[in-house]
């Protein structure tokens, strides 16, 4: 038995390693370009930079504003704030709504769910101008909160659906016995259900963060000062009308992916949580 398992495990590893290398091949190009001093875009079979250097990273990180302040730092902060708040809103609002949709029967339950779904069907690329007008009317142009609200509303539908689906798989019997123990609605939600839904929350957190972190069009259009720009805006600066500074852009892309991977790494332990023995049996 163990022998068979080990062989199976080796096959799995071999497959996974090969697969990962194939998947990461284009990424290796990005990394190679990030470490290449030229601003060109290389095309061949092997993505190895000839004279690796970190000057692209240094350049991108030391972007200064027109008044001499550290612009990169400021924009990094803006991005973190916007993405962080989007994640918080996304999780918080989606958890409550998802729980309501899953557990309660109320007027407009199915209608509400459909509405979230339906809201995703409107092609966003064509709604830039109405959205601009609305934010202008609300006085949220050039405010980070404006971006947070817009990103949250586009991330929430998926989060709600995901969490609702997940809550559906948690048996009602858990809650019922909690009610028998005398717990209030809120305690049940906070202490029983939420911990069991950690995997889904981790997924929605990552998703909300990603929605906000890499978004570029709305950020550029709604912000009118360079100190309110987020990171993707600076990054897109390297893409010009006729020529693109690939070295800087690749370095920026690599730097921008690091927080996402860090977040995923941190969330991984939630992804392996779940219903433990004893909760259902007995």
């Amino acid at each position, binding site marked *: 038995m163990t022998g068979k398992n080990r062989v199976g495990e080796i096959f799995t590893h071999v497959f996974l390693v090969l697969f990962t290398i194939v998947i990461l091949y284009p990424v290796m190009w990005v990394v190679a370009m990030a470490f290449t001093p030229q601003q060109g875009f290389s095309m061949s079979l092997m993505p190895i930079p000839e004279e690796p250097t970190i000057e692209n990273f240094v350049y991108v990180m030391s972007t200064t504003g027109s008044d001499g302040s550290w612009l990169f730092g400021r924009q990094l902060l803006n991005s973190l704030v916007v993405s962080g708040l989007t994640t918080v809103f996304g999780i918080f609002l989606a958890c409550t709504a998802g729980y309501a949709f899953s557990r309660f029967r109320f007027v407009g339950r199915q209608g509400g769910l459909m509405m979230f779904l339906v809201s995703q069907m409107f092609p966003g690329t064509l709604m830039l101008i109405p959205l601009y007008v609305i934010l202008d009317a609300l006085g949220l142009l050039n405010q980070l909160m404006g971006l947070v609200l817009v990103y949250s509303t586009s991330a929430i539908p998926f989060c709600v659906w995901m969490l609702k689906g997940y809550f559906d798989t948690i048996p009602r019997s858990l809650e019922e016995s909690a009610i028998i123990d005398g717990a209030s609605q809120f305690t049940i939600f906070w202490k029983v259900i939420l911990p069991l839904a950690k995997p889904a929350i981790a997924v929605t957190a990552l998703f909300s963060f990603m929605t906000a972190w890499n978004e570029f069009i709305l950020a550029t*259009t709604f912000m*009118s000062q360079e100190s309110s720009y987020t990171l993707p805006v600076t990054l897109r600066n390297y893409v*010009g009308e006729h020529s693109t500074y690939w070295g800087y852009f690749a370095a920026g892309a690599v730097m921008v992916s690091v927080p996402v991977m860090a977040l995923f790494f941190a969330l991984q332990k939630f992804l392996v949580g779940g219903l433990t023995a004893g909760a259902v049996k007995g």
Partner: protein
Amino acid sequence: MRTNLASAPSSPSPSRLLWATLLCALWVLASCTVGEKNGGEPGKDGLDGTPTGPVTVVLWHSYREAEQVALNQVVDQFNATHADIKLETLQIPHEAYADKITTAIPHDNGPDIFIFAHDRIGAWAEADIIESVSSWATTEHLRSYERSTVLALVYKKALYGLPLAFKSVVLFYNKDLVPTPPETDEDMIAIAKANTDIADRRYGLVYENTQLYFTAPFLHGFGGAVMNMDGDVQLDSPESAAGLQFCRDLLTKHQVVPADVNSNLVTTLFNSGKAAMVINGPWFRGEISDGVRWGVAPLPVVKSTGMALAPYLGSEAVLLSKRSPHKAQAYEVMQYLAGDESAKIRMTVGGQSVAYKAAWEEVEVAEDMRVFRKQLDHVVVMPNSARMNAVWGPTNQAIHKVVKDGEAPRKVVAEANARIEASLE
């Protein structure tokens, strides 16, 4: 079936407090760290309309690197010498620039002036986004700029900006592979053939052969055209067909160009010495790696027609927003930006081919820059009519069909012409 509520995981208070604090901090940061509400508006006057203190003029641009450094220098110099006007700038990534202009200006959130290429002037004039400056700019003053750069800014008999710099494609060549640049198209083909080895993936001439912008010189060199300044579609003609046929011949008959070209490939090939000649614009200078000995020359002349391969001229200008509350002061800034002092800085520090004629005489200019100016003798001003927008898609398709699919040029241009006119109905 009882859950042991007491043993259900409960978060210890300190971490909950931590999360709450983090949340509050984020919220505070988001609300407080940004500038004024709907900031970036054109500077406002005092209550009774008279300027109180210096008037703020906001300038938007999408310059980077050297050009940005040059512009900042000009701005600083302006602010130092003008006490009554404060000039501020905002840089915007090029991809989102046009959309931002058309969204912000009609809602009074735009700049006072902005730097942009001239090809959208027609559409923006019709949409009341930019203001004409004919009444401020006298004919006398306009003579100090290169003529074609001014013509590019005239739409329906009104002038819409002041020209800062011009760009067009020219012929770049590798000095090690091409000792003297070609003067006629036959020379060019001969040199290209000598430098092409398909098996070795070396090519004599590399340019984006499915894009109108880079194919236009060939169209114009045979007497063809796509659209004139008034917005009339002129694609359907034997001359245009001849131009496209020439491009097709470059690929199939002479076999000196690669089959599948994109802008990155052009740079890569030139930098690795695998492209002897390249048709590209002034931005290309920044992409060439140090190891390559390169030169520029004006595009050659077509022997059979006697006409030069004439590329599209792009005139980069400073435009005035229709919603600016200080148009007179904004025009003063525009004049400074386009004028002598600024031109010298932009040319030496920014490497721009400036439109202000006198600056070329007053400053030490590199040889390759002079070539860009020489190309001005044979350019076609890109039409600034809004109708030009409808041209790119069908024409690029037509070029693709002739050059890559080998369809009959005459039929293809007639079809494309009809399609453009249909979409303009």
